[in-house]
């Protein structure tokens, strides 16, 4: 089964990229279909990962990134229906491709033995909430970059960024606080000042600064807060695991 993983990952990533290009060319219907195809292949990768590890496939960065990619399409459908943001398809499609491209080159370590502390009902909601919020934050950040490159459709883009981050934030809050409740249940303390915990708190705080900036007379600084928040998010998600000096002991498995 493991031999199927790389071809499936490549097909899924390619479909997401192609969908992004089709959205750019305003062939929205075809783009939607190609995104759906990429999503189904993405789903197949996750099912395969689950069968290989015989557990929930959230054991390492490769498996988590495959789940992250899967979050984008349902969220895009939600925003299209609820907020009339179907024009954001291009951002969602490219954002879906990035984790899948990364996953192609990652170590696809098959065996995963969940340590006793991870055998908890909090595990899936905690990780999924973070994945949903990170997916949305990635889309909002790509839109911010687009705004900085071409300063057109300013009001529409800012409205969309705000709507997306407003949906991301409760999930990020749930991820952060459910982690605290889980840690209390497992080790008797909500917070251990572990590197990953502190970076996630910094990320959450910076998004909070973004929301407060928007409602204050410092609104023009909101974009900078957004930029810093996303950089902190990247540090939380990647750097803490990759740089030994920033290493996290309690989150060494994630």
């Amino acid at each position, binding site marked *: 089964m493991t031999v199927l993983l790389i071809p499936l990952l490549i097909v899924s990533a390619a479909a997401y990229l192609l969908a992004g290009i089709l959205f750019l060319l305003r062939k929205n219907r075809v783009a939607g279909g190609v995104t759906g195809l990429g999503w189904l292949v993405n789903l197949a990768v996750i099912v395969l990962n689950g069968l290989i590890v*015989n557990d929930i496939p959230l054991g390492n960065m490769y498996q988590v990134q495959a789940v992250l990619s899967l979050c984008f399409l349902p969220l895009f459908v939600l925003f299209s229906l609820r*907020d*009339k943001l179907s024009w954001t398809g291009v951002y969602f499609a490219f954002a879906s491709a990035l984790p899948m491209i990364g996953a192609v080159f990652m170590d696809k370590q098959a*065996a995963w*033995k*969940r*340590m*006793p*502390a991870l*055998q*908890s009902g909090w595990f899936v909601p905690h990780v999924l909430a973070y994945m949903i919020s990170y997916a949305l934050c990635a889309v909002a950040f790509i839109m911010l970059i687009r705004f900085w490159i071409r300063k057109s459709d300013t009001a529409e883009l*800012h*409205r969309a960024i*705000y*709507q997306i981050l*407003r*949906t991301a*934030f*409760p999930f990020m*809050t*749930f991820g952060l*606080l*459910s982690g*605290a*409740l*889980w840690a*209390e*249940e*497992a*080790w*008797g*303390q*909500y917070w251990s*000042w572990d*590197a990953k915990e*502190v*970076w996630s*708190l*910094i990320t959450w*705080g*910076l998004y*909070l*600064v973004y929301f*407060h*900036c*928007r*409602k*204050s*007379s*410092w609104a023009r600084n909101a974009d900078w807060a957004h930029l810093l928040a996303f950089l902190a998010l990247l540090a939380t998600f990647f750097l803490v695991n990759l740089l030994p*000096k*920033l290493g996290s002991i309690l989150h060494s498995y994630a």
Partner: protein
Amino acid sequence: MILRYMKFAIIILCSVILLLLTGVLPVGKGLEATAVYYSPVMILLLGLLSGGCVLCCFKRRPLGFILVHLGVVIVLVGAFVGYVTGVKGMLQLQLVRPVAERQVLNQTGDPVRFGFEVTAKDFEVEFYPPVYHLYRMLPPEQVVPGQMPFAKAAEYDTAGNDFIEIDGIGRLEVSNLWNEARGEWTPRRMLDFGAFLHLASQTPSHYGVTLQIVDGEQHVELPVRINHPAGYKGWRFYLMSYDQVNRSYVVLSARHDPGRGAVIAGIWIVILGTFIFCFRRTGGVA
């Protein structure tokens, strides 16, 4: 007025973030992180944040807004109560010749009495199916004097597998590695050509113990597992680890925290408030 409160909140939040960064960034020789997080400056900033949130609770604003700020205040008050009046310590309970423990040493090393006796019994641990390492004999020219004449050649995970396929030797049923009489995995299995399989360290999937509480005439038994602490008369016991060699003791964390209820309630209020506030209808206006 609202704008002034927002600016105040931004300044406090940015200050807290800067302090957090000084603790977490590996700059210079690195500051003692906890010294930063528990510094008077941090406590002052959290106090100011709490004060700002209290003021927000009295504004005519949407329900979600009020709940979020109220929740933050409750969490910070509960955490402060726990910080000032709470007791926390580690406890090692013997399993072979159980000795009743009546107290725990707190963070400053002073003994704090439980008001009852605690002993541990019936320790249980379950393991995942093991990994075996394959060792092969080295050719004579590769043997270094004073070192073992074999080297690790492969690794086999038995989890979810009925058999393992060993290069040059053939297929081996996983069930043949389980010693039914002793109820354990065979530590070493000899194979052809001087090769052998060696049981690698096993990963526990679950472990738990039963706490026996003697409180005057009352005897209570409480099971404790990872993620499932036990509570008795305001004390909570968390299973942290165990003696992996002889299984002669377990290590527990004992905690008495009068602020716990407030912190948990506050956390749920913040979560609920954030969802209500961020998912409220704004008519598409950002």
